[in-house]
Each structure stands twice: as C-alpha cells, then as structure tokens.
C-alpha cells in the first residue's frame, strides 16, 4: 500500500467571486506531522473542512487513505480523527458520556469502547476530570477532551484545526508534547498561524496565503531561505555608507538611523558568505569608528511575512486586505515572540532561528 495518506489535487473553494482556496495540491505521507500555516482567512480551515468532507470543494478532489472524498466520504471520514477550530463539545455532557457517545458514533462495540476510553483517558491525561461536566472544564482540559474524541477510534490520520489557539503557554506546551507523541504513529495535519508552534512541532510546513499554497518545505529549509543582514553602528562620518558599499559581496547599504553622533547602517550581502571581517577591515581603512557589528539571519517570521504578504501584492484591489492580514500576522508574531521567549526560558535546549552574532542586541530590538 502507498504511504500517501492524504492527497489533495487542485482543491478550489469559491464563495461567490471570492476564492477561499485556489488549486491547492499537496500530499501528506504516513507518519508526517505537517503544519498548515497561514494568516487568518488564508484558507486553512476551508482545506480541513474539505478533507473531512464537511464541505465540498468547488473543483478538485482529495483522497484520504485511498478513499476519494466525493466517491466514498464515509470511508474518508472513518480514517480521520478531527478536532475542529475552537473545540466544539457538548457542554451539558460529562466527559465520560461524551467519549462514550463519540465512540459509539465511530462504531465501537461495548468492549472496544471500554478499552478505547481507557486508552484515550491515559493518552490525553483526562483521568482527573473524567467524571466532570464539560462546561466546567478549562480551555486546556477541553482541548484534551477534543483530542481524546479524535483519537478514540485510533485513526491513522489526525486533522487538528488550530489545536493550541487560546491556550496559555503551559497548556500549549502540554498539548504540543501530546501531539508530538501522537505523531510518532500517525499522520498529523495541524493548522495554525503560530510560527513557533510549527517550528517546535512539525516536520513539514505548508504555507497558504489567500487560498494559494505558497510554500511546502521543512521549517529548517524555509528558515534557510532567509537573507542575512549586517547591522553596523559607527561614529557618524560622511564616507560611512560608501566605505561599506565598496566591500566585495555587499549588495546594498542603507542608513537606518542617525542620532547622537552615531549612524546605524544596514548592509545586505549578495551571498551567505561571512562578511564581518571584510566590513571590519573596510571600517578601519576608511578610518571609521566601529561601535557595533552584528550579523543576523532572517527568521521564519520574516519568511512567513514575505510569503503571505507578497503573494498577492500585484493585485491592487486585494492590497488593502493584505495589509489587514499582514498587520494581523504581525500582531500574532509579536504575541508569538513573547510566547517563544517564555518557552525558551523554560526550555534552555530549544533551538533558535535567529542567528544573532554580536555583543549587543540589535538596534531594532533596542527600539
């Protein structure tokens, strides 16, 4: 049997003249944890609703574990464990009743149901509130119950729509760990607009913007697409800009700030070669007093912004929407960076995409 668990071919969804999804094609293989990344309204949830057969595409099709969503939606649904956005649950039910109901809907018999409930209770850590009414649970606990129902029939594919939205950093870390564990045996697609979540959880990233797939790569490979920038702070001098522009390998030099007798310059190189020594040498030769020199690689946030904001820039009508999306994404990135910093404080071994190499924080951060 092929190890392709999800194959989407030319998925398009139109709402009137608006294309929520535009010819999206991708495959997800067995055992992959794939992050579906994009700003709000990019088409992530639409794709998930199509894959779970909740809505039908206007064009294109998809197969779920070999079952076509048009020809055999029941088989496609049976192969999926789904957690929709905002974790809809029946608040008036007890967790135990709810899991029983979902297990019965999945066709489990009495014995199978008992075993399945025992397994998911342990797997998702819901034993302490198993006999509680769902409406009394915290957001994190509800998320666990949502995951438990998605896992009750041991599906080979898990589709999770923004599983960590609205969770505090501790809850998010717990759910992330759970998803990582689950992903060892299953194919997982999770949608998010949270970049740190993708970096920490997923092996592959699909970036979607305005309904179009604009990137399909590993988080590392995406981050490697970023340009390197050098930030130099020198004592103000007229020749500063020209001195660095002459250095071999420099593409452009921009004066970013000039105040209190200090000039901050931003140097963009033509390649990834390390220019720090050459820039230092140029400063010496031009008799410039170099106060700071920092090399910095663009991180996933910047790549994401470029991919999702620039994707439709040509369309003047859509430019306004894009600004909205970008500002939303930027706002989320700010939250995210904060979250990430908190996480790093708790996880000293966590790798960073930023490769800041300098003695002081960059001028950008200081601002």
């Amino acid at each position, binding site marked *: 049997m092929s190890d392709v668990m999800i194959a989407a071919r030319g998925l398009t969804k139109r709402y009137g003249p608006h294309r929520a999804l535009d010819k999206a094609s991708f495959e997800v293989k067995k055992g992959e944890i794939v992050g579906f990344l994009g700003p709000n309204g990019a088409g992530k949830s639409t794709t998930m609703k199509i894959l779970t057969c909740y809505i*039908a595409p206007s064009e294109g099709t998809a197969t779920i574990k070999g079952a076509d969503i048009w020809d055999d939606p029941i088989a496609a649904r049976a192969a999926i464990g789904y957690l*929709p956005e905002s974790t*809809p649950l029946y608040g*008036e039910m007890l967790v135990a009743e709810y899991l029983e109901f979902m297990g019965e*809907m999945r066709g489990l018999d009495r014995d199978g149901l008992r075993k399945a409930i025992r397994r998911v209770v342990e797997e998702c850590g819901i034993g302490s509130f198993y006999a509680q009414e769902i409406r009394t649970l915290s957001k994190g606990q509800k998320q666990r119950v949502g995951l438990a129902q998605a896992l009750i029939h041991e599906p080979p594919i898990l589709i999770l729509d923004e599983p960590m939205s609205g969770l505090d950093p501790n809850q998010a870390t717990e759910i992330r760990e759970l998803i990582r564990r689950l992903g060892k045996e299953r194919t997982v697609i999770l949608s998010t607009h949270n970049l740190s979540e993708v970096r920490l959880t997923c092996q592959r990233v699909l970036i979607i913007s305005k309904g179009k797939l604009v990137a399909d790569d590993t988080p590392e490979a995406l981050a490697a697409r970023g340009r390197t920038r050098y930030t130099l702070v020198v004592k103000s001098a007229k020749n500063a800009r020209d001195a660095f522009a002459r250095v071999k390998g420099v593409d452009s030099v921009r004066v970013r700030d000039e105040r209190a007798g200090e000039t901050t310059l931003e140097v963009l190189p033509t390649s990834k070669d390390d220019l720090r020594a050459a820039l230092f040498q140029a400063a010496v030769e031009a008799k410039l007093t170099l106060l700071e020199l920092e090399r910095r690689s663009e991180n996933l946030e910047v790549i994401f912004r470029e991919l999702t904001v620039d994707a439709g820039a040509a369309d003047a009508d859509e430019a306004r929407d894009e600004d909205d999306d970008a500002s939303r994404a930027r706002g989320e990135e700010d939250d995210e960076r904060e979250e990430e910093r908190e996480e790093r404080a708790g996880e000293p071994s966590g790798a960073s995409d930023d490769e800041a190499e300098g003695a002081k924080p960059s001028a950008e951060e200081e601002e």
Partner: protein
Amino acid sequence: MRNTITIASRQFRSYFNGPVAYVVLCVLLGVIGVFFWPPFFLAGRASVRQMFTLVAYAVTFAGPALTMGLLAEEKRSGTLELLITMPVREAEVIVGKFLAALGLWAVGLLASLPIPLAVASLGNLDWGPVWAGYFGVFLLGSAVLAIGLAFSSFTDNQIVAFFLTLTTAFVLVLLLGWMTPFFGGSVATIADFLSFMSHLESLARGVIDTRDVIYFLSVTGFALMVAFRALESRRWS
C-alpha cells in the same frame, strides 16, 4: 440505523439535562389540567375528545421549543461540524434528531394517560376513540416537530427557528381552522384540507381515515426532506 439510534438517544438525554423537557411536559400537562376539567364536569359526559384539542394547542407552543435547538444550536456551537464529520450520513442525523423530539412527545402523551384513566373511573369511557385520538395527536405532533426541525436546519439562531416554527404551527393548527367558516368555495376547501385540526377531528372521534394519516405523514416526510436538503446544502454553500 445504529448511528440514528445513538444520535437520538444522546439528544433525548440532553433534553433532560436541560430545562426543555421539563418545560414542555409542564406546559402540556398544565394546559390539559387547567382547561380540560371545568368543561368536562359541565358537560357531564365520559369523553376525552376535548383533551386532544388541548394537546394540539399545546404542541403548537411546545413543538417549537422542542425543535428550535436541534440543529440551530449545534450549528452555533460548532458541534454539528464534528457530528457531520463522523462516518455518518446526513439522513441519519436528521432522523436521529427527529426521533429524539418524537420520543419526548410520546413521553408527554404517556404522561397524559392518567386523564382518560380518571375519566374512565368516573363514567363509561369508550377506549376506541381514546386510542385513535392519541394516534392522531401523535401524528399531528410529529408533523409539527418535523416542521420545527426543518426551520432549525435553516438557521443557527434558536430564537429565529422558534418563531418561524411557532408561526407556521399556529397557522396550520389554529388559524386555518378558525378562519375556515369565514371563507367560501375552494378557499374554504383548501383551508380545511390544510388545517391540522380538521384532520385531527375525525381521528379524535375514533374514525381512522387513511387520508388524515397520509396527510400528517406527508407533512412530516416533506419537512424532514427539507431539513435533510438544508443540512446537505452546507456542502455547496
């Protein structure tokens, strides 16, 4: 079928987890209790025909309350998405929801049984028309509930579903019957044909006319079909 029963039993239990079931049962039994006995003692006849009229009036108000949340609330809260993405057919969801409401309606009717039993203890009650009457209000109730389910499938707002069902049920159960004497000719014939009360009347007299049974079953079937189509239409919206 198994899915239908699972959905019906969850919905049925959820009625009793909230106030809906108790309110509906109180309204039904309250209306019968308050309005049945005074005229019964005045007439001094061992008959419960008047009770079935009151039950029909009660379902005009109780039906919308029973059905307003069936799909509208599931849509609003998002649980419908999870339910529909189970390996289940839309028809199973519709029938399951309908059976739950019908089950509660049957419980309400069963709860009213002490009234004919009390009447029987007071006089010589003919049980034939009683069973036929119960059969009639069960069918009438099922038609109102199916209409309510259809309206619940159009919207994600329970209040909208409630008022649309209430208005339709009011017209079909009460208004058409009241207005028929004021019409003449074919309008009166059509109004009489559509009126739920005119179809209930003969059943409550103990006459099981297949035309009345088919009428109620047709309205029920049509409304359930509309609900099914409305639920299915979300795929193409």
